[in-house]
């Protein structure tokens, strides 16, 4: 089954290019430590999922590139082509000249309707190229104007045009201390709208990835390219083919569907966080050895203690005892559902019992339904063993609360509202969005 990726805005396009690059380099990489047959199966599955083979023999990414100004798309297209190993189709992009000016209302109310037909035509074409459409993966930031506003509009259009397809939105959260002054407004507007049309939101926070670059990857002068490459690696570790419970003996043919099924049992809870272990500079890989018990132990503690990476984990945090009490211990991250993805040597013997501990979860689902595991013996991106965790839990509660708080603070002073009103977004629209998100915050807090 194939996934069509929609890259929106500067961030979406820059990340998208790194993702396809990472996927391609992974499948071209050396054996992956598994049998030739396994490797062949993996490569075929990845290619079917993300690339289209055309007569040119260089795989063509199944992607639609959208931006309201031309510089980024032209850079993205040329970087892909320069790699020589994959490229974008020359007819899959849409751009305009003027950008959205960091104005969500401009992206949503002006650019959206104006360019709906052209954009949806491109999406339709990509969808038709798929033998079986597995769903849509959109990449966007929520701080700016195009990714956020136009992205929210396009997601709605996707939902209307493909009512039975899965839609996963990858949303990048900006640095807390400003990239864009009105980023909190744009974020509130985006998240509340996506909540109504998307199936799930998979979130990356710039602050977190920045820390990973600084502390784990040892990069001195961190560029956006570095940040995007870490994000691409994490996404690759989720979306490269795996064997799932529902997939039978071959690689899963419905990754998005199975993701939603495992992680989103209730429409009120759609925010997914992502953690990946281990993460280190490529130069250190030959000198490192990993053990599955070690990796699993760390990953579980990262989940419980809401740690952002494998350093600085608070080992004091423990799940609540079995004696029922009304207060969950402070700082304990309650989960609704978790998905662990294991890749590499000796996966099949790994003990994941610690993730099935009922005390990690709310009481709604049976523990065996709340936890799922996907595996493949084929190693990913040169890591002999790697584990990813996609979690529907309180991971994003604090950051979400922070964004809503700052946005509300600004809203109370009415600053910048005239800029949104110019394009048709009024105070009442803001209030509706705040209400939606306060509801989400409340729901996640009371798990």
């Amino acid at each position, binding site marked *: 089954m194939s996934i069509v990726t929609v890259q929106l805005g500067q961030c979406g396009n820059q990340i998208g290019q790194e993702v396809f690059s990472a996927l391609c380099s992974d499948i071209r990489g050396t054996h992956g430590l598994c049998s030739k047959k396994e490797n062949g199966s993996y490569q075929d599955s990845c290619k079917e999922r993300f690339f289209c083979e055309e007569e040119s023999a260089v795989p063509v990414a199944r992607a639609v590139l959208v931006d309201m*100004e031309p510089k980024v798309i032209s850079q993205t297209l040329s970087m892909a082509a320069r790699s020589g190993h994959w490229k974008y189709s020359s007819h899959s992009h849409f751009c305009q000249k003027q950008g959205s000016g960091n104005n969500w209302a401009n992206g949503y109310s002006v650019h959206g309707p104006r360019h709906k037909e052209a954009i949806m035509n491109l999406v339709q074409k990509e969808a038709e190229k798929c033998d079986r459409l597995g769903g849509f993966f959109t990449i966007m930031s929520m701080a700016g104007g195009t990714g956020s506003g136009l992205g929210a509009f396009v997601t709605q259009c996707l939902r209307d045009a493909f009512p039975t397809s899965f839609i996963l939105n990858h949303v990048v959260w900006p640095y807390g201390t400003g990239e*864009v002054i009105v980023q909190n407004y744009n974020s509130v507007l985006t998240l509340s709208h996506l909540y109504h049309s998307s199936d799930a939101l998979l979130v990356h926070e710039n602050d977190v990835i920045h820390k990973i670059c600084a502390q784990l990857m040892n990069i*001195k002068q961190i560029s*956006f390219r570095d940040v995007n490459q870490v994000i691409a690696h994490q996404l690759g570790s989720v979306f490269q083919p795996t064997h799932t419970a529902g997939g039978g003996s071959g690689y899963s043919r419905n990754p998005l569907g199975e993701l939603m099924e495992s992680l989103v049992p209730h429409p009120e809870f759609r925010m997914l966080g992502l953690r990946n272990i281990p993460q280190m500079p490529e130069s250190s890989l030959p000198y490192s050895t990993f053990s599955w018990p070690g990796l699993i132990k760390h990953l579980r503690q990262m989940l419980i203690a809401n740690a952002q990476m494998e350093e600085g984990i608070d080992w004091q945090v423990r799940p609540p005892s079995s004696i029922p009490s009304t207060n969950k211990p402070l700082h304990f991250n309650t989960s609704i559902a978790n998905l662990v993805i294991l890749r590499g040597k000796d996966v099949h013997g790994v003990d994941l019992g610690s993730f099935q501990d009922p005390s990690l979860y709310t009481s709604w689902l049976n523990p065996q339904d709340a936890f799922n595991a996907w595996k493949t013996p084929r190693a990913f991106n040169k890591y002999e063993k790697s584990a990813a965790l996609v979690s529907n839990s309180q991971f994003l509660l604090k950051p979400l609360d922070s964004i809503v*708080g700052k946005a509300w603070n600004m809203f109370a002073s009415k600053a910048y509202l005239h800029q949104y009103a110019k394009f048709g977004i009024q105070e009442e629209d803001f209030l509706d969005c705040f209400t939606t998100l306060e509801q989400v915050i*409340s729901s996640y807090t009371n798990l």
Partner: protein
Amino acid sequence: MTQSVVVQVGQCGNQVGCRFWDLALREHAAVNKKGIYDEALSSFFRNVDTRSGNNGPDIYKGKICSLKARALLIDMEEGVVNEILQGPLKDVFDSKQLITDVSGSGNNWAVGHKIYGCQYRENIVEKLRKTAEHCDCLQCFFIIHSMGGGTGSGLGTFVLNLLEEEFPEVYRFVTSVYPSGEDDVITSPYNSVLAMKELNEHADCVLPIENESLLEIVNKIHQMINSGKLGSTVKQNSLVTSSAGSAKTLQEKPFDAMNNIVANLLLNLTSSARFEGSLNMDLNEISMNLVPFPRLHYLVSSLTPLYTLADVNVPSRRLDQMFSDAFSRDHQLIQADPKHSLYLACALLVRGNVQVSDLRRNIERLTDCPHAVLIYPFTKSQSASSPFYRNRLKPSLHFVSWNQEGWKTGLCSVPPVGHSHSLLALANNTCVKPTFIELKDRFMKLYKKKAHLHHYLQIDGMEQSCFSEAVSSLSDLIEEYNELDATKCGPRIDPSRLKIAI
């Protein structure tokens, strides 16, 4: 990619404008080695096929034939414009872009605005339309003028009005040179205040410039070069005041150094719209992020570095120095004190080999608050809508309570000529208030005595009410800044959040 048009009005406007076009050509020549007409060039220049004369068709792709500035040159005296047309830049402008007259405006805003405005209105509109037609996607008009005289001030603001009427969707950025206290034009306070009303109502963004600041920068550079203190030599073309490497090098005039600074301001402002980078900042984003309320659109600008030393590899400490400099008064283009006033918003446009980690490190340093302490209710019993707290160390820059992290950042990969990197800081800060108060005081000094008033009132269309409305508009603006300043010292109380029924 979008295009911008520069409208230069009056003596000052045209002199600054001239420097802008010269340095713009120099910048593009440094970046564009192949001589191909690309999108970056098209933002300010047309490519015209002049083989059959000056009226040839535009060429949109391919080799550069003849570059023509997207500009309108307006002056009610001929001296400055004629000089431009006889100088090395004569081929950059075509005669259809000029509007001149002979007798000047006599330092009288009313003459510029009412008499010449009326007389040349149709001519101006027609020429504006022509320049707009040559643009694929016109995004912004840049007006350059001075406030103290008659043409730049009066006719310049008349054009501003026209632009709003005829091209309401296009942004209007105005670079205004404000008169100093010792200005030799006695009526400059009248001209400035009358012009301010127009700027309040019709401009999207105003970049006020004061000659004193420009002069101080020029002197500082002189001193630095002549003191011989620096071991290494300074790269000549890196001086923010220099015309080195441009077409005009051999004929530097006294105001050129100061005007080059303003020209560099405009080049840096538009760099991220013209060139690529990892975090683009377009002109419409500047207006969106820096203008929280429609009339508070006056931005304090500062440029660094003022020069680059040759043969010096730049360690990151030097980079950090650049950020500190941007917030020192030596680098500002107006005489104001933002550090002791309130920031409403601040934009940092960085050019060159600077990455996001450098940016983050410096923003943290400037706000002096690396570890904010936030307390979140996390137990079941409390609702999630309690206010969140921040424990701040004494910050060095004061931001308004509803915009504590009010930073807008942009990273453009292409550095300016002669530098490996540069920074333009644009601040919306209440420190412009004293400047406006002073202006108002100088105005009232004259107005109370009705000094020189008859020169204005005898002009058709001018009445006493024009003056009272203008000063009232200025007072209202000052009052808006006052209200914001008042919030600076009070206790920080965040408004309570919406409560959700569980």
